[in-house]
């Protein structure tokens, strides 16, 4: 798959997220009116309604908000056991996540890593 085709992944509102992901940069939306960060992307700030939002580089740091070790195979591409988690970004918003290569616990601080994918842009995942 060409880089151009990878960019077709996603939608009109999320395109900047995946364009940055292609360069292994994590970006989130920031409201210049009220200061709120938001994820997943929307066309305006859902905290205050302002249109004045910009994409910013996230720090790539997060805390594990909750997690589970998945021990059942739900599809061929997922090989249990693995860790699915919700992480809270340093900026505030939460993302679904995998925690890779470690045995973490809730409250642990994690940092961004990227998982290469065959047919889509790199996926943000996390590690201790």
């Amino acid at each position, binding site marked *: 798959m060409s880089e151009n085709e990878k960019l*077709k*992944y*996603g*939608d009109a509102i*999320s395109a900047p997220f*995946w364009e940055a992901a292609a360069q292994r940069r994590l970006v989130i939306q920031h409201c210049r009116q009220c200061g709120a960060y938001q*994820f*997943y992307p929307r066309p305006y700030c859902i905290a205050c309604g302002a249109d004045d939002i910009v994409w910013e580089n996230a720090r790539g740091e997060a805390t594990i*908000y*909750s*997690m*589970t*070790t*998945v*021990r*059942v195979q*739900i*599809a061929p*591409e*997922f090989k249990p056991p*693995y860790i*699915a*988690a*919700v992480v809270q970004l340093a900026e505030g*918003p*939460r*993302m*679904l*996540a*995998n925690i890779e290569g470690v045995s973490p616990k*809730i*409250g642990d601080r994690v940092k961004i890593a990227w998982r290469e*994918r065959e047919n*889509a842009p790199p*996926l943000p995942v996390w590690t201790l």
Partner: protein
Amino acid sequence: MNVLDKHPVYIAGVAESPLGEIYDHTELSMVAVAAREALAEAGMTLKDVDGIFVNYMGEQGSVQVGEYLGIHSARYLDSSDLGGAAFEAFVQHAALAIAEERCEVALVTYSSRQRSLRGRSMAPPPGRVSITSQFEAPYGLPFPIGYYAMIAARHMHLYGTTSAQLAEIAVAARKWAQMNPKAWKRDPLTVKDVLDSRLICDPLHALDCCLVTDGGGALVLTNKSRARGAVKKPIRVIGMGESQTHWHAAQMPDMTVSPGKISGREAFAMAGITPADVDFIEPYDSFTITVLMALEDLGFCQKGEGGSFVSGGRLAPGGALPAMTMGGGLSYNHPGALGLLLLVEAVRQLRGEAGPRQVKNAKIGVAHGVGGVFSTSGTVVMTNE
């Protein structure tokens, strides 16, 4: 005076469809069987129905069900998809419609054959453009158990809730099921059995999870004058509420607070009661954690105290708060969406026709539906007075 004081609404008939593993019916024929039986309890027939409320009965579900039942002149229709909580929400929608005279006889119905059709998958939906397929599906979180597992894990992290406490809920459900001949699982169950069962998504074990069965049912709601013709005792709805919080795991505002906080507040305030007035509750038990957190959010105990609250058999037969009295989704039946069967059981308890599992002197009962990934809830307070 609230709307239900001015315009009393009753559940005048209830029925279960065939339950368990069903090969000699379709979903629509199961609905038809249940609808006729519930209407007979109300002293009515399909000809009386002018409001139809269904969920999960296919595209434009009320239309498909209405056509199958030969109801072509209904004037209030609702196929709102609120998952398993839709049916408690339908009580609110139907009661308001009846109060406003937009319909007089509301049929709420549902069925599923997801056991016999093996229609259940934990895999995320395919795709490349939806929010779910971009931001959740790639992480392989099993639906819905992975979501509830993370909710349980966070509850344990904050409040010290234990797997043994969650197991007490499954054990209580089984004890009730042992008194219900229609229950799918009736063999004895201990806390140790639950803890020894296979971990699916930590901390939830196989026996923390509800069954997957076929089944369904029907309810008939109507106004006071029409309820006088009922064959069995009509049960009055005195409080109702519904709410929702999130669709995606990372968007739940607080993973240890469910939408039951709001649906319960609305329903209890409308009924003018507190949890201390409740004689029994039918909480949605998709997973053990679903019950524990709902009891906190409805105010039966403080947030974080659910683990100790459910311990010592409080929810079991003979306990202070009878709950899941037909055996719940954990042991009786769970046909994809349990919310309707919670209402059926609550009505039977309030009529005093629950046989060996009858809660003595039950006057006020609560059905609390939960849908999605703790996404929605509907709370209904009923009385036989």
